[in-house]
């Protein structure tokens, strides 16, 4: 018995050691070109002048997606831009339960403000309430809480608006080209998510204004390889296509690869989110990708700035109100070749 368990410990240790060794001998620091609000110059913006010290607690899921990675990097970088902000990040763990525990730990440390991107707004509603009850204002990033009492500020992107923007761009382009009965493809992300359904609903509504509809819809999973598989299936189903909306630029890497592999170019494509690679490609104008509709992780930078103002009891200088508003929904913007330069710094 003891010999056996000793052996198990030995092998377990060997496995852990091997893992550590593997990690140690790779080096690939991704360059985290985070988006920092340049509006932190005190001479131009009185709000930027150093004020009361604010401790900002931060938690976001540790997901494998470029967008979430950008959210965390942006928050960190923005906090570093203010000398009066102390940034306390807590790893949110793998699921809602783990994040709830992380938030309890955070609340116990009594930060001035908490900024969180919940795993799921509904499941973390109680965690938001708990923090608010403890007198800590909560800033909800992107995934709304059902109870109004669970947050001080909600800042999020506009999924429905993203679909609308993509639909309008495609509608306008096809109308300009006088295409009757166009064949339009759609590659959404994970189909069971509310955000995907909102995006698709917006897209459908906008296309309907032009009398168009989606001819084929193949969901992917926000990853490049699933995007490649979905696009391959879609291209096979539609031997001729006029336009394509792909909801997410990360999976778009795979979508564009599939388009190149099948030598197709008779249509134009619109992306989603606004990644740096996509913006560069739109600017270069050498592929079917002609536009992308934003859902920018820059919202994390703005959330930190607003958390600081809330902590210091200040309002937004361009608004009349003395406090920061309760809800902010970012507009989804359409990036094309013409304005790609202006958006280049917001790409993630």
């Amino acid at each position, binding site marked *: 018995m003891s010999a*056996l368990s000793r*052996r*198990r410990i030995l*092998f*377990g240790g*060997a*496995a852990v050691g*091997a*893992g550590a060794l*593997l*990690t140690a001998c*790779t*080096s*690939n*620091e*991704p360059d*985290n070109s985070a988006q920092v609000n340049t509006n932190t110059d005190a001479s131009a913006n009185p709000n930027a002048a150093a004020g009361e010290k604010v401790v900002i607690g931060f938690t976001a899921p*540790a*997901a*494998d*997606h*470029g967008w*979430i*990675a950008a959210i965390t990097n942006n928050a960190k970088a923005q906090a570093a831009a203010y000398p009066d902000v102390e940034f306390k990040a807590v790893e949110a763990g793998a699921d809602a339960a783990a994040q709830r525990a992380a938030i309890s730990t955070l609340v116990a440390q009594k930060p001035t403000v908490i900024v969180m991107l919940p795993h799921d707004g509904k499941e973390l509603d109680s965690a938001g309430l708990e923090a608010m009850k403890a007198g800590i204002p909560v800033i909800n990033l992107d995934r709304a809480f059902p109870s109004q009492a669970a947050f001080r500020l909600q800042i999020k992107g506009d999924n429905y608006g993203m679909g609308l923007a993509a639909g309008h761009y495609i509608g306008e382009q096809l109308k300009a080209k006088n295409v009757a009965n166009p064949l339009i493809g759609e590659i959404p992300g994970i*189909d069971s998510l509310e955000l995907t359904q909102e995006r698709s609903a917006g897209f459908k509504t906008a296309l309907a204004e032009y009398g168009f509809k989606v*001819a*084929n*819809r*193949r*969901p992917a*999973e*926000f*990853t*490049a*390889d*699933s*995007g*490649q*598989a979905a696009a*391959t*299936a*879609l291209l*096979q*189903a539609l*031997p001729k296509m006029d336009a394509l909306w792909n909801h997410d630029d*990360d999976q778009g*890497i*795979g979508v*564009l*690869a*599939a388009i*190149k*592999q099948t030598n197709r170019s008779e249509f134009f494509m619109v992306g989603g989110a606004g990644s740096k*690679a996509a913006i560069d490609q739109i600017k270069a104008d050498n592929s079917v990708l002609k536009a992308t509709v934003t859902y920018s992780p820059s919202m994390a930078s703005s959330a930190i700035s607003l958390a600081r103002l809330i902590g210091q009891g200040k309002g937004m200088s361009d608004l009349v109100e003395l406090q920061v508003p309760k809800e902010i929904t970012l507009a989804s913007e359409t990036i094309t070749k013409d304005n790609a330069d202006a958006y280049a710094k917001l790409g993630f």
Partner: protein
Amino acid sequence: MTTQTAPPEAPAKQERRKLDENTLRNLGLVGVLILLIIVGIATKPDLYSDPTWVKNNFLTILQQASAIGVVTVGMTFVIIGGGIDLSVGAIVAIAGVWSTTLATQSYGAGGMIFTAIIVGTAVGLINGFLIAYGRLVSFIATLAMMVAARGLAAQISGKQTQISTNSTINDIASTRPLGIPLLVWILAAVVIVGWVLLNRTTFGRRTVAVGGNPEAARLAGINVKRHTMLLFALSGLCCGIAAIMLTSQATSAQAAMANLYELDAIAAAIIGGTLLSGGRGTIVGALFGVLVFSTITNLFAINNLPTEVQNMVKGGIIVAAVLIQQFRFQSLTQLFKR
């Protein structure tokens, strides 16, 4: 189970019966494939009336089955050998991510392929080592590896999608020697090597013996532990090859790639007639299993049907295949005997 594994020195009669059974099952799967194609023709006659499209569609189905097909060959060996490998998707991810780091990419295509294969095999070897010598149940060991390898992949990639800038790697997916995609050639090569390995070598014989009755295999002088370890390394090797194929298709790699490949590979092996308890299975059957899934995906795509229905159909086919395996084929083979 009445279909007990034949030990290596099985009588010729039993051998014959097993062969009949496998042939029958494979014919059944070919029947399913033909049925799916007929449904395709019936629902989309306009597409199927264009011969160029039909040829392309056929190649697309094969191409989309290629990476998962390679993984399934390795999985089939592991299952026949009495184990299970839940970490294949994660191994593809770690191999893909490792081979596309900026550091690895600087060594060129050869370096990337070498890295993917070495990393895949090494992770498989760790699995096999823990299972054979650490006496962990393969389900648990590979479950742990599934989580850990994805974690390591996320760590290495910094949770970013790593774009492959190597044109040689990226061109693998678009190259078509003799009009057939290179990816399909790779799948064909892996299937042929796998078939020969399983059916024509002592390694294959030992795999069946170890899976059917490890104690008997041990008494017969087979080094069961070493063999088990090699089987998992083989699965890892297949994952390494698949990682390069998938990286080339997506021109990138990331920690979340090859999501749920373990389930697709197990399902394909099972409907191909591989016994989950080990000791029996065929490479050709597993290949047909993969093709059935790939054809269903294609059929649903050309008809613009939602993927949730597709998943339900896939589930139904898995259950049906296992049920048929349990009841029908026994009686059918009896019928043919008489």
